[in-house]
């Protein structure tokens, strides 16, 4: 099933696996910058994985909130003396508020109309950025963004390794928070809405309000990723708020599989590493990504992580069957 399965315990095995992966990444990848880029997009993809997998909402507007996070963090760092952590959190909060407003207007429609509304808002955000040239720098973006210590004088972000450690810590907390929400009473309501929103309404749940809250949380995650991106690059380029960013985050989520938060990490990792490798070989590398996307949707509807989980599950039940005389139902 292409879903957050019901009630994973919290924290579960993937929480530990995530911690190990995040610690190992800068050592196994060719560069620490690549590891930083990976964790930034893992959080961005997580916003789509959460909305699509847990709540059943396909948002093509997550790039807008990524962009608001990116530009928000850049503006805060350029115009105030706040530390990096405050800038990141404030930018993510701005994105969450924007997502709640977009959500308030979009959840009046369901299905394809909802998707079109999120797409329209993403377009609007991009042109708003171009129009507000004095604030956003227009097509040049915002450059020369400082990278102050995390809080006050603590946690100097002078080296790429320190930047990675900061971003990886945020990534870990974002994943843990998402897992916590998914296995909470609120998560159970969101799952119910995904399964059958008419019944959820009849049971007494205000479906629109819960969807708005979920979109705000999704916006928070996307905004967090955008702000992390600004810390990572030291600038906020226009492509962070382009509609193509929305598309990229959805593609990562689907490649990884929306059945578990881990899908976002796998999807983002696959995309970022493949892009890094392919772009040195062929300038038209996006064509290969498109081809892979088609192959995954056709042959691995649960995504890479979902398919891996399925294989592990089969292997386990195969072993259980070999041990016990009773057949075990799958």
């Amino acid at each position: 099933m292409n879903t957050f399965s019901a009630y994973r315990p919290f924290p579960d095995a993937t929480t530990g696996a995530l911690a190990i992966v995040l610690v190992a990444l800068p050592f196994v990848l060719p560069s620490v910058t690549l590891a930083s880029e990976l964790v930034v997009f893992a959080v961005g993809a997580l916003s789509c994985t959460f909305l699509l997998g847990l709540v059943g909402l396909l948002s093509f507007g997550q790039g807008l909130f990524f962009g608001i996070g990116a530009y928000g963090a850049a503006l805060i760092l350029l115009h105030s003396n706040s530390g990096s952590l405050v800038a990141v959190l404030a930018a993510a909060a701005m994105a969450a508020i924007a997502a709640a407003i977009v959500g308030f207007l979009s959840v009046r429609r369901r299905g394809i109309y909802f998707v079109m509304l999120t797409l329209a808002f993403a377009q609007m955000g991009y042109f708003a950025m171009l129009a507000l040239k004095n604030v956003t720098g227009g097509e040049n973006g915002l450059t020369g963004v400082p990278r102050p210590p995390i809080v006050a004088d603590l946690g100097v972000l002078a080296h790429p390794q320190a930047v990675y450690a900061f971003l990886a810590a945020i990534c870990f907390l974002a994943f843990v928070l998402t897992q916590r929400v998914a296995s909470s009473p609120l998560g159970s309501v969101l799952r119910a809405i995904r399964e059958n929103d008419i019944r959820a309404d009849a049971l007494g749940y205000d479906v629109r309000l819960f969807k708005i809250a979920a979109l705000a949380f999704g916006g928070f995650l996307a905004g967090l990723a955008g702000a992390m991106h600004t810390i990572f690059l030291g600038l906020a380029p226009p492509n962070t708020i382009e509609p193509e960013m929305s598309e990229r985050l959805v593609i990562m989520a689907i490649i990884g599989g929306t059945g578990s938060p881990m899908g976002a990490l796998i999807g983002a990792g696959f995309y970022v590493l493949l892009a890094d490798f392919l772009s040195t070989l062929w300038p038209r590398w996006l064509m290969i990504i498109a081809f892979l996307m088609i192959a995954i949707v056709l042959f691995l509807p649960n995504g890479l992580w979902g398919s891996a989980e399925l294989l592990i599950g089969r292997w386990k039940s195969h072993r259980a069957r070999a041990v016990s005389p009773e057949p075990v139902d799958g």
Partner: protein
Amino acid sequence: MDRPGIIAENVGVRFGGFRALNRIDLEITPGNLHSIIGPNGAGKTTLFNVLTGRLQPSEGHVRLGVRDITRMAAHGRVHLGIARSFQVTNIFHNLTVAENIRLAVQAVRRAESWTFWRGVNPDLNVEEILAATGLQARAADRAGTLSHGAQRALEIGMALGSDPRYVFLDEPLAGVSIDDIHRIKNLIRSLTPRRTVVLIEHNMRVVLDISDRITVLAQGEAIAEGTPADIRANPLVRAAYLGASV
């Protein structure tokens, strides 16, 4: 008033040019088992949808005692004690039976439903409803794997999750095997007089047996109302609906 009734005043529903309901006046007395019968297309489910908030009437009002709830959404009415089941089984197929009922119980605890920092509350009273609906043994199974009869029982169990004062049951016996009919019938009867039950049902034997009051709809109009004995004796009803079989 401690237990207000549900009152429909001059309720009409139009779908384009089609009049699904026409000037319906109805009073559901607290503690009663009130059945709504009528041939297919008479407007029974439409009336249910108006009374439970899934549909807003084109004209007329719905009141709970003195309170006008005509424009109140379905989820809001649950918090006033009005719950329903569906004619076509409408459950969370991919979730477990216990989880289906737990979600129903949790729905009326607003603070619980917004809690995101801990796991679900194991104290919610799910066992009692599982026992009442005979679903204890299947609690951990996926709801989609239940037999049709068990899914109908789960439908009722979910309607009871919010501990409602008014329970609207839309054809709870539809497609239920003979063995299960008796059990579900007793379950429905046992809900009153603590709860008020509004029932749509085609099984006339059951309706005439357990109802306190019956309203007969035909072509969107209420053509008769009374006790089961009144309805059985009403020549208009016999002609329109019951036929010679009763």
